[in-house]
């Protein structure tokens, strides 16, 4: 399908593979993969400077800990509260991605957020660069336009959902509010995705309680734990760090596995400290095989029920 210059893919792109959802997680099980979660703090609307900082960060990571995947948050090349800076910060891929950065992708899988311009429309996008190519692009589908958010004013909503084969195996990206919508996570689960990356620019807010974290962070953690337990997927969350216009971003990193084990960045760490986590694929496989409600999923029944519920609601 083609509509308004954008390729629209059917939501369930990989239904044929879904009986394989109990299969192994990645091709090579005998390895641990190290993920660098980057609570990046870009300078608002200064793309060249941010690209330099991104490359410097990648080089520091490679020299220090040699990660396999480097995970930057939403809109890392531009900053978040862009308003009219959205237009001057928008980038084409692959043309506007510096060659030096692409070259680094031979050493590490790079996940990067950017305002993406395609056919005159700007998307809030996240790309994966691996082995010198852009192997995946996700365009944010649900653009929050309420409260302090105004994304719908500046960005075009994405209308497709897909996965890619990364170093961890079958993976996908949902950007921030996309992951508030369980239907998207369910669709990825049904298509056999095992690893869900959620880059975010989530403002820290909510102090009217006695819990150890902000209400906004606790909501994220709970949400990802439910997805992981229900759908048997591994969730990787990265919020940006720093502040813009008085709005603070907590720089939190979370890894959640289907047996409800959540690993977070040490709370004593500074907002901008990098969180490294070694994902042992055999541990992941064990956690997955231990089972959960995701093993019992009846996709065909679910689809019949969705259809029936939809028909009932329309009448």
């Amino acid at each position, binding site marked *: 399908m083609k509509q308004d210059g954008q390729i629209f893919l059917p939501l369930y792109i990989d239904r044929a593979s879904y009986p394989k959802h109990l299969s192994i997680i990645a091709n090579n099980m005998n390895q641990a993969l190290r993920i660098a979660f980057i609570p990046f703090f870009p*300078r608002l609307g200064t793309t060249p400077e941010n690209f330099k900082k991104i490359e410097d960060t990648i080089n520091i990571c490679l020299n220090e800990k040699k990660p396999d995947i480097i995970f930057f948050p939403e809109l890392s090349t531009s900053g978040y509260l*862009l308003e009219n800076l959205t237009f001057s910060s928008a980038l084409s891929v692959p043309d506007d991605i510096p060659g030096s950065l692409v070259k680094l992708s031979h050493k590490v899988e790079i996940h990067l957020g950017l305002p993406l311009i395609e056919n005159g429309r700007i998307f809030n996008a996240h790309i994966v660069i691996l082995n010198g190519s852009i192997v995946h692009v996700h365009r944010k589908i649900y653009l929050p336009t309420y409260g302090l958010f105004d994304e719908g004013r500046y960005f075009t909503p994405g209308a497709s959902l897909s996965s890619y084969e990364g170093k961890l195996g079958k993976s996908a990206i949902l950007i921030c509010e996309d992951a508030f919508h369980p239907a998207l996570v369910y669709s990825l689960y049904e298509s056999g995705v095992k690893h869900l990356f959620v880059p975010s620019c989530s403002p820290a807010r909510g*102090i009217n309680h006695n819990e150890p974290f902000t209400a906004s962070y606790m909501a994220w953690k709970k949400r990802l734990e439910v997805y992981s337990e229900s759908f048997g997927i591994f969730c990787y969350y990265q919020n940006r760090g720093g*502040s813009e216009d008085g*709005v*603070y971003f907590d720089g939190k990193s979370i890894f959640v596995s289907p047996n409800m084990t959540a690993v977070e960045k040490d709370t004593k760490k500074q*907002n901008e400290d990098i969180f490294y986590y070694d994902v042992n694929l055999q541990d992941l496989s064990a956690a997955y095989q231990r089972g959960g409600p995701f093993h019992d999923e009846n996709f065909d029944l679910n689809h019949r029920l969705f259809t029936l519920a939809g028909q009932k609601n329309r009448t």
Partner: protein
Amino acid sequence: MSEINNVLPLPPTNSKIALNIIIRTFKNEIEKTGLTRAVIGLSGGIDSALTLFLAARALGSQNVTAVFMPYKLTSPLSREHALLAANMCGIKLLEEDITKMADSYFNTASFGSDNDRLRKGNVLARLRMIVLYDYSVFTKSIVAGTSNKSEILLGYGTLWGDMASGVNPVGDLYKFQVYAISRHLGIPDDIVQKAPSADLWEGQTDEGELKMTYDFIDRILYYWIDLGWNKERIYTALHEAGQDPQTADMVFNRVMASQYKRKMPLIIKVSEKTIDREFRYPRDWGM
């Protein structure tokens, strides 16, 4: 007050989280401008004392200046409390008496003003801000705001006077949250427990002027604004608590009447790209 506390209870304040957010953002927002310092007008009251404590934590005491700016009618207790707060933060207190500046204006203004408490209060507040902004240029500092959320929503402050600032670390805290965080930080009871006052004349208190307590005001504001209750639901709650529901109107009306104080001045649109309509850029542009 126990009855209103049952129908409109105020939530706990997580001071630790609030401090984490405020201190880091305060530091970020000042440092990204290329500056490292802040200047604060210290009145002797709780709001400016809390701002001073936050600034000292965010920027280091050596990067914070506290300025006490008395008028001839300012209470001696205010100076004592300002000094107490500054000493606790390890910050030297500067004193700039504004009496001569103010009286010179009051005595020479062709239309007079000395007998009008509102105008006099506004002039004093704006003179203090002249001093602070001048000092901020002199020392390459940012003026830190001291108005809390309750005051800002009520419009209980002087436009371009005490409401002015470069960064306001307490502007999203209701008065009950200011109390909670101040206690958490160990700000002395002498400052925390005294009646809030603009100190414009002897015996003046905020609550006396507003004809409501901050406890009542905060409950109405919190339920109306933060929790999204409509007015009718608040009237019903007050009725259940045995209070006159219409007292809430004093809060609603003040918030509506003072909306202009929370916005930039109106610009009359004639072009295709009007500032703050189509010309929308973040304050942190390029920072």
